[in-house]
């Protein structure tokens, strides 16, 4: 006697606005989940970096030290350190608990657009408008980067790090993937300035959004395009895109105030979240659950699958997907 196969889970999309947090930071340039998804980081144009609790929406700590707008941030895997980058050309390594600046890394020639820790938080990688990616060592006391990657011919808009790979997207229309294990550099030509790059969860694909209002899913090993997602507007601003935690959907910000959500396989538009009237600048997906953070102007929105009241109940409720 065999048990019936469990019903395949209907992929869920974060369609409900759970809460809105008014960050009081000027414009929120980036919003990020931390490693476990319990906290969020908001990077403000008022040079501050704030740590919030996602579930309660409360401000936990403010980190000041940058000289100009904070453009991106990332938390280490153990939540002990934060790194942030700013228009003041520096990358700062913070101690979470005390809020002190552990290290201020100078070297970039222009504003630093993106920053991320590696898996073990031993290296901070930052990409700047000066076209270089710098790898900073968090363990040593040296202020020089371990390596500078200057193959790009225009600014670096986005970067992501995986176990042994570094993915960068540049305004010169190319996505570069540095494979440390193989010692290779793969360059994918997109023909349009790249605004955001992502790894897929299974590390087989890369997601690229570019200024031709197109999000493309490329195969990592061959470079072939697996999916193309359009409908949103991305013509002038650096906006984020991401994959859902289970690689079911592709999500992207848009300049028309919505967040677009496509089905990865079919490529059809599943969801169009009405965030607001202004440009949705940043978004971040929960590492494991189906939660989404978006930022627009000075506020951060938390989206979930179901409204909060229903979640607290703990019952499983089938939620009807709203088709747009």
């Amino acid at each position, binding site marked *: 006697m065999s048990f019936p196969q469990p019903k395949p889970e209907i992929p869920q999309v974060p369609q409900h606005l759970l809460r809105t947090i008014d960050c009081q930071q*000027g*414009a929120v*340039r980036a919003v990020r989940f931390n490693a476990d998804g319990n906290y969020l980081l908001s990077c403000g*144009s008022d040079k501050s970096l704030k740590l919030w609790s996602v579930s309660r929406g409360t401000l936990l700590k403010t980190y000041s030290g940058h000289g100009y*707008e904070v*453009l991106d941030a990332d938390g280490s895997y153990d939540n002990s350190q934060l790194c942030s980058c700013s*228009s003041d050309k520096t990358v700062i390594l913070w101690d979470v608990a005390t809020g002190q600046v552990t290290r201020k890394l100078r070297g970039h020639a222009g504003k630093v657009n993106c920053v991320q820790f*590696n*898996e*073990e938080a*031993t*290296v901070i990688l930052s990409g700047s408008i000066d076209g270089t990616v710098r*790898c900073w*060592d968090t*363990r040593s006391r040296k202020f020089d980067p*371990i*390596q*500078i*990657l*200057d*193959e790009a*011919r*225009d600014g670096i808009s986005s970067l992501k790090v995986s*176990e*042994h790979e570094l993915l960068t997207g540049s*305004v*010169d*229309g190319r996505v570069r993937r*540095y*494979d*440390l*294990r*193989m*010692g*290779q*550099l*793969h*360059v*994918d*030509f*997109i*023909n349009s*300035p790249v*605004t955001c790059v992502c790894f897929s969860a299974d590390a087989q694909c890369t997601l690229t959004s570019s*200024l031709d209002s197109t999000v*493309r899913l490329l*195969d990592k090993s*061959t*470079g*072939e*395009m697996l999916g*193309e997602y359009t409908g949103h507007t991305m013509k*002038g*601003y*650096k906006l984020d895109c991401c994959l859902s935690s289970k690689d079911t959907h592709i999500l992207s910000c848009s300049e028309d105030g919505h967040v677009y959500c496509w089905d990865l396989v079919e490529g059809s538009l599943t969801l169009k979240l009405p965030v607001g009237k*202004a*440009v949705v*600048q940043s978004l971040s997906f929960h590492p494991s659950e189906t939660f989404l953070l978006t930022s627009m*102007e*000075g506020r951060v929105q938390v989206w979930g699958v179901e409204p909060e009241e229903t979640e607290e109940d703990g019952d499983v409720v089938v939620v009807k997907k709203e088709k747009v």
Partner: protein
Amino acid sequence: NMASDNDSDEDFVSFGTPLEPLEEGNPLRKPVPVYEQTVKDEKGRYQRFHGAFTGGFSAGYFNTVGTKEGWTPSTFVSSRQQKAERQNARPEDFMDEEDLGEHGIAPREITTTAEFGPGRKDLIRDKARAISSLSAPIPGDTLLEDLVAPARTSIGVELLTKMGWKDGQGVGPRVKRRPGKLKADPSTRPLGPVLPPHGSEESQDEEEDEFVPENVTFAPKDVTPIDFTPKVDLHGLGYRGLNPLAALRGAPAAGHINLFTMDSDRSTSLFGEDKKGHKRRGGVSGQAFGVGAMEDDDDDIYHRDTMSNYDAVLGGEEPGDGLYGWTAPQQYSRKKKDHSKDAAYLGKIIEGFTLASEKTETKTVGIFPPPNLPRDFRPVHYFRPVVDMSNASSMVVQALQTSRGHMVQEGPSQGGRHQLDSAQRRELLGEATLQGRHASLWAACLLLTRFPLAEQQQMEALSVWSSPTAQAQTGQTFKPFEKTPHKQARYDHYIEKLKQGDRDALEASLDPCMTEWERGRERDEFVRAALLYKPSSSSLSGRFTRGKHDDSVDQDTVEVKRDQENDVDDKQAAVKMKMFGKLTRDTFEWHPDKLLCKRFNVPDPYPGSGFVGMPTVKRDKFSVFNFLTLDSTASTTASPAPQGNRQDRMYSTEGPVNSFDSQNMV
């Protein structure tokens, strides 16, 4: 001229200026007032004293004292506060340009100062002095030399004397024949403009012994010094030209016209005219000669009239063109020429000029084309570095530097032809060596200054290079013999040995294949180079570091990434067609940093690689101009070669790059 006026018809000689013939019936001339009875020179000064003597000069102000107002003592102030200082007046204060001129009483002339006198010889003297000052009982003091000061003769005489010349001899190669009559004591003769000797002062001993031994050479005959008045005109040598006034008076009136006059007479022709432009007549003209005192119209009084003013032959045309060799502008000529040609040039003729009588053929000076440049000619001059070598130890080096401002380097090849001494020059010219005593003594003096210090130099070089600071210096910063790799290699070997403290460094690093002389030279050169370019002391060298980029080497190449992307156009087309994959992807070799691999916990894919990032190669520098051809069929839009600059690629085919700005958000 007047003095030697020989009238062939008469047998008397006339001197002086004859009186104007008294002509009755002429209207009486207004008497010249006394105050106008003066003679002025070209500057309006009064020319002569009245009567008292016929030579000399005018003094003061119009033969009076001081100024128009009378004698005014200059700058004499004495008051209770300011006592007058002693006014020491020199005679020169009272002289004017006339006095200080050539014919005045205090002529000035240009002479060579001591500085520029025998200067050439100071090189050797300074060296000898510096060296002897070290070994003297009192180092640095030149008492002995100052006691005995050499007689200062001019440099030319000194050089000649060294080469074996004696006073009274001529200069040049010795001759075999009987010597000419030597001039008397040329050393006392001033080497400047002098009057030519009147006649030739031949020595009286014509009756010399005929016995002349064979193989005896004599010095050549000395030459007559030449008048060094600069010649500023285009006439022949010695040509004086005609005094226009004398010519205008009529050739016969002037009598014998002497075209080649003496020096003193040259200036007199100017004084023919006084301020009012009156023509001075009379043959003898000069400062003191002419009309009487206070006469303006000299010519009226002393008009000379000779029979040559009048034609003796009827109807005879003047021979030639009547100019008698006169070549001055025609407007002075009596003869009226055809002036029809002038009509076209009326108003355009410069004052003082007139149309030429003959059309002179304009010499067709050949137009020389520019030289043909060789194919590989580059208009760049590479200055060969002059390697300054010192002749002695460092102390003397200092002394020499302060004394002359630079160190003289020996060896004709490095200093150029002006740095040769006579011995080197002689061997270059291929002349026979002198037999005189002077030559060898002089060369011996030179040699003496060099040799005693060789040992000292070597020890010094050794001590300098084996010191710790020298050891620290890893790279050889100065390569004196860069052009000669073999020599440079031997030099490097020598320096290495010096660093190790090897005493025989010098001998060991010479090339045994060379001749003894060559080795000797190289030995000296190495020691000097080692001394000269010793490694800098640590305090100073700590402030400097070697440049990262060796700019002197390899200007023609540039480092570019070895692997280049494929053509962008293809990629763009592929993207448009949505054919991602092979067409849009490029894969390159990339070397991560060792530490980065360690941090990422991955093994280093290239353990032995010495570089980081993408491999680069050196390629020749290209620019757009390498690919432009004059051929119109060549495609100008052709993409440059793959090893072209990255710059080209960036601008050539990329579309407009949108740079976004997140700050535009709010």
